[in-house]
């Protein structure tokens, strides 16, 4: 009871912080960060696209870690948290692919080009995670579903960093473009980028927290309802026996 009350108190804090963060980040993007020499205004999509990508990938790994905790402790709460983490990352991931496309179209004229190793690895990762829901929901028994989903989440979570590394080594990517060279950014761009990254991360966490809360509640409700139904059924059976 206490924890739930505590949760309620901290719950508004997280979304508030992310709202402030988002406002700050995109305020900075539009009014503070200087225009990039080559690409101009379009380059500002960088402050949305890259933080989204980083948070998405971290989210997948986070989902894997939570799945590991589920396998270790058997507590179904971790399974729920893992599912939500992956689910939200999938949504963010789609946004990454869309913003990446827009950027590509704007600066190169094509909706998709195979010259950015990070994005290409990202595509592979998204394809892998497309199988998460079909795999999971094909299994009816809840305990087995959670276990299999956890095995997948851990395997895929390990795959994320590995694939990023291997794809980068591939010989076709000799000259990566601006996206991956985040090291040598001038100070104002760097600051904007960091603020954007923090804001997106906060957004992810508040969405995650929120969805875990809602789903957890629905879960509890279903469980209590099932319990009540069983108790009623038993009473009915007992009454029957006494009569006969």
């Amino acid at each position, binding site marked *: 009871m206490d924890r739930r009350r505590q949760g309620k108190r901290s719950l508004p804090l997280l979304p508030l912080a992310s709202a402030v963060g988002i406002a700050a980040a995109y305020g900075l993007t539009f009014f503070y960060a200087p225009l990039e020499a080559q690409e101009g205004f379009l380059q500002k999509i960088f402050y949305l696209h890259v933080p989204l990508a980083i948070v998405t990938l971290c989210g997948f790994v986070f989902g894997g870690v939570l799945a590991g905790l589920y396998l270790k402790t058997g507590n179904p709460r971790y399974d729920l948290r893992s599912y939500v983490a992956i689910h939200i990352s999938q949504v963010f991931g789609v946004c990454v692919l869309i913003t990446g496309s827009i950027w590509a179209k704007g600066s190169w004229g094509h909706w998709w080009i195979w010259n950015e190793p990070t994005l290409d690895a990202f595509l*592979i990762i998204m394809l892998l995670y497309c199988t998460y829901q079909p795999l999971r929901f094909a299994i009816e028994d809840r305990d087995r579903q959670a276990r299999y989903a956890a*095995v997948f989440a*851990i*395997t895929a979570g*390990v795959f994320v960093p590995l694939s990023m590394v291997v*794809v980068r080594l591939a010989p076709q990517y000799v000259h990566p473009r601006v996206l991956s060279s985040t090291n040598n950014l001038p100070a104002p761009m760097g600051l904007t980028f960091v603020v954007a990254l923090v804001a997106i991360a906060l957004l992810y966490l508040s969405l995650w927290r929120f969805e875990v809360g809602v789903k957890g509640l629905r879960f509890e409700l279903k469980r209590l309802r099932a319990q009540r139904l069983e108790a009623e059924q038993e009473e009915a059976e007992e009454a029957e026996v006494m009569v006969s």
Partner: protein
Amino acid sequence: MSATLPQAKAKDRLEEPRGPGTLSAAAALLSVELKLEGRTTELVPGMVLFVLSAFVVFHFALNRGALEGDLAAGVLCVALLFGALLAVNRLFVRELEQGGFEALLLAPVPPAALFLAKTAALFIYLCLLELVGIPAYALLLLARNPVGVLGGVVGVLALTNLGIAVLGGLVSALTVRSRARELLAPLLFLPLLLPLLIGAASALSPLLAGHAPTIGRWLASTGGKWLTVLGLYDLIFGLIASALFDFLLED
């Protein structure tokens, strides 16, 4: 009328039976798997036929008689990958249908032994596949004679086979019980294998090029790099998969 069963000549049965070690159990399961494959020949002939047909299809689809370099490496890897898929789809079906999983859960054997056995079996099947497939490839599609660089090719394929076997075993176990097994297994398998594909194709392409370097030079440059990458990838997923397999076994 009936014979009595003498007490089993083993350790004190009331204590926890100290079963065979993982390796010994895996060896027993592997020999059963190979014996069964020999008797029913479900997998290997299908894989070989498929890969040979794939080569023919590529010949017509690409409208080329002879491949070399990047293209040669890519086509070979893709054909082998799809051949492997056939096996992955069916790797654990016998255990599912004939109660192999339950029998194993009742025995004092760590479940990882089954994973080891199946992975080793898949590795062997892939090697058999390549024993036929590489000569066929050289005959049908390759521009140059690969005999000179065979050592390098074998090395790359050995490590790739290992990775395919490990990930194939894991994916197969994950999908064997689901109704949509034939659909899920490829969807799960192919992305996980892409880094291996990149590694194998990148390592093989200089070897299959018109003017291939010597093995020594190749090892010192791309070959060595990619062999290391493949090896590490295999190792990491090998460890993870054998640890996670326990959780897939019970119902």
